[in-house]
């Protein structure tokens, strides 16, 4: 590629055909070529994806005597932190998803509107959080919400508050939940937005023009044309987002310290502080089970006709 970086099809004159190598490659590149091409990826994923999963189940469900056991699961469930972690994770999910979809749909519709000037710039800005880590987002919002942080600084300088308000009160689960919700909405709406914009671009202009011609206002067009046609994208975004919500971790730690806990943070604590990989694996298994069940529920709730399916 160093000497041949042209993007046009090279002329016949410049192409040499070494016979022997060609033959060899033809045999190699015969019917089995696609299998040779996917083989490294399959082997890698078998070794570093499938095998660890099997081991995780071993860790979670096999006892010291080598027999199956529910001891580790029982230890997990009986732990004082368990109900709080489960509740916080589920609450977060239930609150975040509708908000994020509303925000993402608004962003997507605006970015997709031909009347908006500077669409490229807006798309870039809205997409920035896509590459921002959970930890960075957590720290950013900590800088805003911490007692001597930027929100209180702004309020004070605007004369709206005399004493700094404690936004991240470790005794108030509701306040911590609200802070994590804001940070997560800020960070992870862009993923949904991108999927929705891609879906919007697939809607033929004629449909919208026809709807407008028949007197449908903007809201009716969204409800009757855009949303139904976006259903496959919404389904995919919903699955992605739900699965990721079960894995929320660093945002919670950065924002709340140990004030609130979630399932992944508990798995982390059991693995690193308590050094019990079995119970940590039980948490991992629970997170996986929740992911799978919710994916099935979403697929069932948003069943789409075969020809519209994306996966």
């Amino acid at each position, binding site marked *: 590629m160093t000497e041949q970086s042209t993007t046009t099809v*090279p002329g016949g004159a410049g192409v040499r055909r070494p016979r022997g190598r060609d033959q060899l490659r033809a045999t190699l590149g015969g019917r089995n070529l696609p299998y040779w091409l996917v083989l490294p990826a399959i082997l890698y994923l078998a070794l570093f994806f499938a095998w660890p*999963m099997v081991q*995780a189940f071993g860790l979670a469900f096999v006892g010291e005597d080598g027999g199956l056991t529910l001891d580790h699961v029982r230890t997990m469930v009986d732990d004082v932190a368990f109900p709080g972690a489960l509740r916080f994770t589920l609450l977060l999910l239930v609150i975040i998803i509708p908000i994020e979809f509303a925000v993402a749909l608004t962003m997507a519709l*605006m970015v997709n509107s031909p009347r*908006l000037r500077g669409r490229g710039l807006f798309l870039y*800005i809205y997409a920035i959080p*896509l590459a921002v880590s959970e*930890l960075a987002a957590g720290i950013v919002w900590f*800088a805003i919400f911490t007692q001597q942080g930027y929100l209180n*600084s702004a309020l004070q300088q605007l004369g709206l508050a005399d004493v700094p308000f404690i936004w991240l009160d470790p005794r108030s689960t509701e306040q911590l939940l609200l802070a994590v919700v804001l940070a997560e909405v800020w960070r992870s709406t862009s993923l949904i937005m991108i999927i929705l914009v891609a879906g919007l671009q697939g809607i033929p202009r004629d449909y919208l023009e026809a709807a407008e011609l028949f007197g449908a206002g903007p809201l009716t067009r969204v409800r009757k044309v855009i949303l139904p046609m976006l259903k496959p994208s919404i389904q995919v975004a919903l699955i992605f987002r739900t699965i990721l919500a079960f894995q929320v971790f660093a945002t919670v730690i950065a924002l709340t310290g140990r004030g609130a806990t979630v399932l992944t943070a508990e798995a982390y604590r059991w693995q690193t502080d308590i050094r019990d990989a079995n119970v940590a694996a039980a948490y991992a298994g629970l997170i996986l089970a929740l992911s799978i069940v919710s994916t099935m529920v979403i697929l069932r709730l948003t069943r789409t006709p075969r020809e519209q399916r994306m996966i």
Partner: protein
Amino acid sequence: MSGESLARMRTVLLHAGAVLMALWILIPIYVITAAAFSSPEAVFSFPKPLVPEISTETMEFFLGATGVLPALRRSVVVAFSTLALAIVIGTPAGYALARFRFRGADTFRVSIVSTRAFPIVILAIPLAVTFIRFGIDDSSFGLTLMHTALALPFTVLVTSSVFAGISEELEEAAMTLGCNRFSAVRRVVLPLALPGLAAAAIFTWIISWNEVFAASILTLRNRTLPAQVLVALTQSGLPFQFAGGFLLLAPALVVVFVIRKYLFDLWGRVAR
């Protein structure tokens, strides 16, 4: 109200809404940037100046803190190694998915897509146990293996969609003109695919740069930057936290700008 003025009002509302949303994204980014480039005195003061006098002292303090520079170096090394490994292993598979109809192709695609359903937790915990057994715990090498497992499904799907976007006829034309499949790919397809592949590579890089859970579990003394910041978070002061948050976030601004034309190839069509 006449139709025209109604339309104008809608356009104004649209722009106002778009700007409002942009501020929602940008203000927090401004806050952490301002915080990281305030002097330590300003960081400890209250109320903090909203427009600080620019000082690099806080960043210098962070970079000088124990373990930060080695962690930064390790993060960069792991991210580039992950990028290389994932692209080398993933691109051929992506090409195969885009170009060939072979038995098992659909199963392969569905299993690749479904790996995204598996939480990182369930990989990291058993791998931590395995890596100890093989003596690669607490190493950049082990973490690279883990990050590649995370990034690989993404790389396969994205490169597949990049190749699918390049007309097969160009390749066939090259082959009738005397190229075999390999030289056709090398001389015709790769140059066209390069920008898309570069975008995929850059995003693979950021997946590794951002990853914190597995990094904190698989390393102890040889931490990457996110792991180092996470662990030090509770015992460190505001200057450390703000500077660390900014440094972790900063690549995102560049990365998204560079790949902005490929966002839909990367995410929008990944599910297809």
